């Protein structure tokens, strides 16, 4: 009994360590400046929406929201569309050929982003593309395609080969097997891949920091403007932070079973 109680105390401490920082940011976003900086910290307070008003009054932040939305949806859709076609083809190959292509795809993910961001930046300045959405959509699609291929292969592998053979015997062409058999059967996996791509793109900072201009700034880049603008405005900052991460936490919980699988590219099935 004592051991059991000890276990639950440990569990509580673990959850506290994991969740407290998040809780503190969200709670601070509802505090007035005076409450936010009170020492000892104020645990009970009358909430205010003042910080959210500040954030929504910030035109830059609103357009960053729109940019993040457009860029992450379009680049992810593009990556999943391309990725599912390639993954279907690869899933049908003999193991040796497949392994070598998969290794190549994986190797693309090891290089630091600096390596492709600098030449992209250089070329973009020369053709004046720095302030355009398509540059970011293309950059993120390029990053997401290898990821989408490797993850989608693991989902296509779960589909029994007999389904394809049966359709082939019935005279279906390869593309219609892909379209009418594999896509519907792997629907869950495709949606999960899409969500993971959106999640990754929404959260991505480095590529966005370098390649966005005034009109294409995404949320993670835009929020840093609260850092330098007249010192640090913690109230508005925590409100903006809450708004940025909330949609991703909801999406993440929706595909929770697939996240570990996605982040290890299926090398461990969650």
């Amino acid at each position, binding site marked *: 009994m004592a051991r059991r109680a000890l*276990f*639950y105390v440990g*569990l509580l401490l*673990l959850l506290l360590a*994991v969740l407290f*920082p998040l809780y*503190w*940011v969200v709670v601070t976003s509802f505090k007035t400046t005076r409450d*936010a*900086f*009170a*020492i000892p*910290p104020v645990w009970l307070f009358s909430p205010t929406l003042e910080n959210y008003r500040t954030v929504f009054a910030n035109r830059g932040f609103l357009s960053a929201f729109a940019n993040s939305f457009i860029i992450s949806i379009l680049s992810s859709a593009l990556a999943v569309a*391309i990725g599912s*076609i*390639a993954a279907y*083809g*690869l899933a*049908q*190959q003999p193991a040796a050929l497949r392994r070598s*292509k998969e290794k*190549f795809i994986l190797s*693309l993910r*090891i*290089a*630091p*982003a*600096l*390596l*492709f961001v*600098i*030449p992209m930046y*250089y070329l973009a*300045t020369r053709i004046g593309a720095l302030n355009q959405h398509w540059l970011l959509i293309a950059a993120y699609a*390029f990053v997401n395609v290898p990821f989408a*291929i490797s993850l989608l292969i693991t989902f296509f592998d779960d589909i029994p080969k007999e389904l394809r053979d049966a359709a082939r015997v019935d005279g279906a*062409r390869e593309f219609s097997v892909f379209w009418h058999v594999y896509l519907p059967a792997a629907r869950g996996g495709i949606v999960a891949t899409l969500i993971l791509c959106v*999640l990754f793109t*929404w*959260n991505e*900072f*480095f590529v966005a920091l370098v390649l966005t201009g005034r009109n294409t700034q995404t949320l*993670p880049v835009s*929020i*840093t403007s609260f850092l330098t603008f007249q010192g640090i405005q913690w109230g508005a900052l*925590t409100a903006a*932070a809450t708004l*940025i*991460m909330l949609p*991703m*936490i909801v999406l*993440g*919980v929706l595909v929770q079973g697939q*996240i*570990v699988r996605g*982040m*290890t590219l299926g*090398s*461990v099935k*969650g």
Partner: protein
Amino acid sequence: MSTVATASDPTRHFFQPIIVCLTVASVALTLFVIWISLHDLSLMRAGREKFVGLDNYVRFFGDPRAMAALWRTVLFTTLATVIEIALGLAVVLFLDRDFAMKRLVRTLLLVPIIMTPVVVGLTWRFLFDPASGMANYLLSLAGISQVDWLGSPQVALFSVLIADIWQWTPFVILLVMAALESAPTDPLDAARVDGAREWQVTWYVLLPMLRRALAIVALIRAIDSIKAFDLFYIMTRGGPALSTETLNYYGYIVAFTNFDISYALAIAIILTIFTNVALLTMYSVLFPKAGER
């Protein structure tokens, strides 16, 4: 399968164009990057670059700032990977029993992983605020004197490390947990029946079964830690006094503050080579019998 049959196999048309595109793009990019790194291209005077051979690479090894950044990257990556694996494994063993709300605990553990890294950086910067931050308040409750978490060159790197550990240990936990649950329980029971003590079961039976999962997660964490950028940019900007500048961050500064993109790409290439060597070494240590899984 004969070559003729393979060549006419229509499924090849599904992946070949994309693989060819990716190959061409990466080869072109590599050549372009190497070409730039062998010149003295600067964004300040584009179009007037000249060939300088290996000067940028020679410069790297004589650049004390780059050497310090390389050493810091090694330190940060090693500490982050080792601590996250050890802590994650400890938590997995701790949680390895049936209890109410296990599913809920798993869901809650996801939260740091999917949190926007920039927001994680801001969160910890807020908690580490010297005057009104929670970290110093907790220390004062325990009667310990205040720490200048992000302002002291001796401490700042470890403060960033704490944030990294907070965000990524749950990832290790979830991955190893998944591996543990798919592992067979028979060997464990057999060992217990043979009279092994609980620590012996864990050490001699359970850990070897988790070896592959631990190796994979260690490789993933090492790759990501070498490239870590967001937390450094948000929490310290490489400071104070360059005490948190990693090689990746230094490369960014060289490229986008000094606009010296040739040297920056030389740094990026060295970083890539360094990463690959480190990974191959880790791989051969973690998977000693290559080819066999």
